[in-house]
């Protein structure tokens, strides 16, 4: 009840109370330290334990690799404690002496510029591909995945494959010509021309049966053959580069060749397998599943042994396959199974409406995949592809078991070099190899995480 003298019983104060500051124990550096370092007895013990571990690991590492390390020298004498007169840490001159082997293996010294060009070109093409904002992605990707491998192949091996027969030659039809110029044999290219024309003719004949237009089909076949022809021309042409056998390759070169080939080759194969696995045709579906699960179920080293010892037996006697190529085939098969699973994840993430929308506008299944589904799905799986690449990069070390000298293999072989036998050579080598692998893998994993965050943000709009 309000009275006349006091018409209002209560008026809230217009100014609110100031918030009290948090208690001293909860704020500032002290509060932070209490929450994160020594809030309770257990916390204190944990912190002390952690500090002990850090002290046990970090200072000795710094001492070994930097303060006690020897940086200048030309032979093992420089790294012996007797000559230096103090305990010696890492022997960096060892790495400097083996530097060329680490980068190129036993690649001939005069030809190393070719490897350098391949390294340089790879960096130039790869960096804009990895920057999401860089323009011309399509052209860039085509250059990196299509043209770059071809240039690298010619530069690294020397090209001039000396191709003798194409399809017709295998059945004895070689036109009886032996002329050749610049490493190109006339008979091979005649055969190629005839096969192209035959393929175009049969394409035109069969086009109506498959509901296609004669002209378009013939043009498509011509295009496909033209691409194959250009690739073979580049491989067959004699550019005057001396041949370098793959046995002479080694070190980082082999590591990168295997990892990059594995990813580049596994991408198309993996996409096909992923589509096959989602196919409605039982035979296609189950053969894809068996293929994928088989390679995923066995260790990579058995795959490499399969490719090294078993595959040559399965091929006709006239094929002799180079040792590195065998390993590459094994790695590509293995990687494609893992790639297929990554791509399948992307395909499953595309909402059904996209499929239905594409069908509603009248796209056939091939076009639907190419124009609508795959562009979206592949973008989603880029982080997965990068993770696959990290795995593959680590797995390349396994080739040392089939006597191919990758980065780790070269270092392991040089541990036994008597010219550099010092008490710390081994640790220096492991330290260096570990650093290289860590920098590559850690860098790529950070990149893949950043990409994932970016995609996530784009998905949410």
């Amino acid at each position, binding site marked *: 009840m309000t009275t006349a003298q006091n018409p209002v019983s209560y008026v809230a104060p217009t100014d609110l109370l100031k918030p009290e500051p948090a208690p001293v124990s909860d704020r500032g550096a002290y509060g932070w330290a209490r929450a994160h370092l020594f809030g309770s007895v257990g916390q204190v013990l944990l912190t002390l334990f952690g*500090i002990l571990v*850090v002290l046990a690991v970090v200072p000795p590492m710094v001492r070994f690799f930097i303060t006690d390390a020897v940086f200048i020298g030309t032979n093992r004498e420089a790294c012996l404690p007797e000559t230096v007169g103090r305990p010696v840490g890492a022997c960096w001159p060892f790495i400097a002496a083996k530097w060329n082997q680490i980068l190129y293996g036993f690649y001939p010294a005069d030809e190393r510029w070719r490897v350098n060009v391949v390294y340089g070109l790879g960096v130039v093409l790869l960096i804009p591909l990895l920057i999401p904002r860089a323009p011309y992605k399509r052209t860039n990707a085509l250059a990196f995945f299509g043209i770059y491998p071809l240039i690298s192949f010619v530069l690294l091996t020397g090209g001039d494959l000396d191709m003798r027969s194409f399809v017709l030659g295998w059945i004895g039809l070689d036109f009886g010509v032996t002329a050749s110029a610049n490493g190109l044999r006339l008979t091979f290219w005649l055969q190629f021309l005839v096969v192209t024309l035959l393929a175009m003719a049969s394409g035109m004949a069969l086009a109506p049966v498959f509901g296609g237009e004669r002209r378009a089909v013939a043009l498509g076949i011509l295009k496909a053959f033209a691409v194959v022809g250009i690739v073979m021309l580049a491989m067959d042409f004699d550019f005057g580069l001396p041949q370098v056998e793959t046995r002479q390759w080694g070190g980082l070169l082999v590591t990168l060749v295997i990892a990059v080939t594995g990813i580049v080759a596994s991408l198309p194969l993996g996409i096909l397998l992923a589509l096959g696995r989602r196919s409605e045709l*039982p*035979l296609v579906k189950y053969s894809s599943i068996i293929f994928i699960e*088989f390679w995923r179920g066995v260790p990579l080293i058995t795959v490499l042994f*399969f490719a090294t010892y078993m595959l040559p037996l399965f091929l006709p006697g006239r094929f002799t396959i180079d040792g590195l190529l065998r390993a590459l085939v094994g790695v590509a098969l293995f990687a494609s199974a893992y790639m297929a699973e990554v791509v399948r994840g992307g395909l499953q993430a595309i909402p059904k409406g996209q499929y239905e929308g594409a069908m509603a506008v009248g796209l056939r299944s091939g076009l639907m995949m190419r124009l609508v589904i795959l562009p979206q799905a592949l973008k989603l799986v880029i982080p997965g592809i990068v993770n696959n690449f990290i795995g593959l990069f680590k797995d390349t070390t396994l080739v040392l078991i089939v006597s191919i000298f990758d980065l780790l293999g070269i270092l392991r072989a040089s541990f036994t070099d008597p010219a550099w036998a010092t008490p710390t050579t081994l640790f220096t080598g492991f330290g260096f190899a570990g650093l290289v692998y860590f920098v590559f893998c850690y860098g790529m*994993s950070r990149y893949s995480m950043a990409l994932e965050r970016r995609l996530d943000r784009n998905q949410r709009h």
Partner: protein
Amino acid sequence: MTDARWSEPAPTRRWSWTDPALRSAVIQIALAIALIWMAWSFFANAQANLARQGIASGFGFLDNSAGFGITQTLIPYSESMSYGRAFLVGLLNTLLVAALGIVLATIIGFLVGVARLSKNVVIKALASAYVEVTRNLPPLFQILFWYLAVLSTMPSPRQSWSFGLQPMFNAFAGWASGIGLTPLSDMLAALAGDVSAPGVFINNRGLVVPRPVFEADFSIIFWIFVAGIAAAFLLARWARRRQERTGQQFPSFWAGLALVAVPPTIAGFLLGWPLSFETPVLRGFNFVGGIRVIPEFVALLVALAIYTAGFIAEIVRAGILAVSKGQTEAAYSLGLRSGPTLRLVVIPQAMRVIVPPLTSQYLNLTKNSTLGVAVGYPDLFAIFAGTTLNQTGQAIEIIALTMAVYLVISILTSALMGWYNKRVALVER
């Protein structure tokens, strides 16, 4: 009165590529022909190549005498035994390193995974560093590192590092008898044996540990132990049923522990400890007696466990983070303390997320155990695809058999996984 349109005869089916049924038949027949042609040409080429190289095919070689020694055998084996026996020895070695590696990797992985979620910044940073370093170095690198850089630089057998379990036991026994606990002191003294020299040695030829010697009566203790486990299991089941029925709790963990531990101890006391240890003794340049664990095994086991633990830690972290905070808060508001909250609310839900990727890590570890070949650990791959392949040249049979073993392990694990997944899957309406 029928409409003329309805009575028209159905159009005869025409050969058309746009007919899905026909198209799928054509594609599948073409694929089948391609697959059969490929299989046939592989087969024909293999036959021709083998005939040219004069290699007989078939698995008959498995009965031939192997003629090579194996440095680690879990079952009796000698050079005169067959390749089949060597295969079995290798398989057991693979399973041994895989099983122990899985146990170790799980323990380290869970610890590191939980540490990464710790409030303590030092511990958190250490755990993150562990994960980043171990995951980003190739497993083969790690195996070679442990083998060449750590184990090979251990001292020679004469200068072994030694650890004494026995001196420790003896010291405890002395202490126990000092305060009047004679039964305990007797037990410890029996376990320690009468040698007060150290029993565990580490040197560049591996790890040497005492070998347990079981006397005849030991089987009694063993069966009492087994019975204890069974009883504890039944007790836990009864306790769970009772709790569901009446809500009353029963300390089944501690009771079960007592059931497992106490009866064998009493039996051992009554029987006079029918268990002793044969201690390794340095004779000449090497140790005699005891069990020698070869350095290849140690290097492989440690490297695989440490490498895989990095991945497991990430899986555990993701699993725990996947349980929403509301679950913890709800449990607290029901009055559960943090221990039971973790045990009854968070972990069961996290396991649902953790277990599938965890299994694939277990499989990866098993597959990575083949890398032991780089340091000479006699696993299935090294013995069979390595030595046996070199000696017999039967590439197809040997590689196919090796791949089949790993494939079977993978498929069995996946099947088990599928069964588990179905069991723990979220039951939704």
